[in-house]
């Protein structure tokens, strides 16, 4: 979503961004987990190519021609484009490198990413869901959802039920695995809090 979509969209971005940080400050989320790691300098330092933004030279990682003064001007680069061969260092000749196979994120990473969010924000989502379900908007949505469900044919209803049950099951499985791992590490935590503080509905 672009904050240029309108004033409401931009205000929503502000609200969500601040709310997430205040949830963290109020210790309502898993404290030990990052929300978003922007810092990729460790990975970038391991990239096969290093581009010196100050001199405009493209080197192989570890090339001795990289000047010390460029230490904080190096950008990790994973592949060299045809237009960029002219920037290659004449000493290490990165243009002659064979390309390493690309380590792409696949759909499984996306699914795990989604579940990590559900897991991290689970208690907040559940609490918000319960509140929303009781609100006027929530009741309206619930009626609309029931109406929509009635209009689906039997096959579509079965598919939707299976999908919801599968999601529920998958979340539960991930939580069980996570709890087992936590307990095996000698920790007795539930969703980032001591068990005494956990939602009694658990």
């Amino acid at each position, binding site marked *: 979503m672009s*904050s240029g979509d309108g004033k409401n969209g931009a205000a929503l971005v502000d609200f969500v961004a*601040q709310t997430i940080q205040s949830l963290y400050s109020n210790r309502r989320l898993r404290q030990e987990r990052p929300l978003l790691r*922007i*810092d990729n*300098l460790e990975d970038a330092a391991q990239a096969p190519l290093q581009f010196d*933004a100050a001199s*405009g030279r493209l080197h192989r990682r570890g090339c001795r021609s990289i000047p010390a003064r460029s230490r*904080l001007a190096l950008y990790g680069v994973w592949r060299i484009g045809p237009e*960029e061969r002219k920037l290659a260092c004449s000493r290490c000749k990165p243009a002659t490198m064979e390309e390493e196979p690309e380590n792409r994120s696949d759909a499984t990473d996306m699914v795990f990413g989604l579940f990590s969010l559900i897991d991290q924000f689970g208690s907040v989502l559940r609490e918000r869901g319960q509140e929303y379900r009781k609100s006027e908007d929530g009741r309206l949505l619930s009626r609309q959802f029931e109406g929509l469900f009635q209009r689906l044919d039997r096959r579509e209803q079965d598919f939707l039920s299976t999908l919801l049950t599968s999601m529920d099951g998958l979340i539960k499985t991930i939580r069980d695995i996570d709890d087992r791992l936590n307990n095996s590490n000698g920790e007795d935590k539930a969703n980032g809090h001591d068990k005494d503080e956990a939602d009694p509905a658990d």
Partner: protein
Amino acid sequence: MDLANAPWQPSALARERVGSLIALYRDKAREILYPLVLAHYPAMLANDGIEYRKMIELSTKMMVVGNACTEILGHDYDERRQMIGGLFGGCCFLADSFLDDFGEEVAQSYVARFGEFLSTGWFELKTDRERLFYVIIARLFVERDILHPIARQAIVLLHRAQAEDVAMRSEFGGAASSRRSLANLKICARNRSGHAILVLCVFLVPQIPLERLTTLFAAGALVMYIDDHGDSFADLTDRRVTFMNQVTRPERTLRRLFLAHVGRLYGELPAGNGRDLLIAFLTRYYVTRVEKNRHQRRQAGSAWAVYE
């Protein structure tokens, strides 16, 4: 070199364009930033809004630079990109204020906490100024794929350069003691502003070819040398050591740097409106900042941002 006959000398049209864009973007910067300041940090409007007006000036500058960079990189500087430029200016102003305006402790705290934010995404908001800063960052982050490898590196390298700047200040304590420390100050200024202009560019366009990246990095470095020369006396008053306030003949050094950098921009960037705008803006910035430095040398002045 005779500046008036240099091949890169901005045309009358390019100079006029800078003037009209500054006026236009000053109004736009207000449109973008005023509602945010009002909602999250209204105290900034106190004292006749001096600090707010400084922020608008920096934002205006970033919008003009953003316009030039966007055109150089082959895109239109549309409304959305203007908004990104304006937000980026606000973000830079606030980050610079944490680094420069509230003493060493606040600067070190900002460096540590922003480093934590870049590693984890968590940022505890302690003041309204921080809240405004964070809201602006959040708005910028939704405008682009923030996990793009070059975008991530530009942001983190900018932060590393800021951290090094803060560390060097406490190390030098008011004066650079050797030739080597002077060289380090110059590299630090280059990195800080070089990465800053690249951060602006990664928010503005989806891809930056490496060839352009290095030339724009040089343009960013030049902005910092010019800026530091203009603020030279104010920085010395605050015991803030910079390359430009430590060299023995700053005006001559800046002229040499300006000619070398602008010559490089002219030679390496594709001919067109973007290149002309960038060079015309830098020329105007150079001339006004040299004048500002002379003015401050004559009478102890303020750190007010000037273009005229």
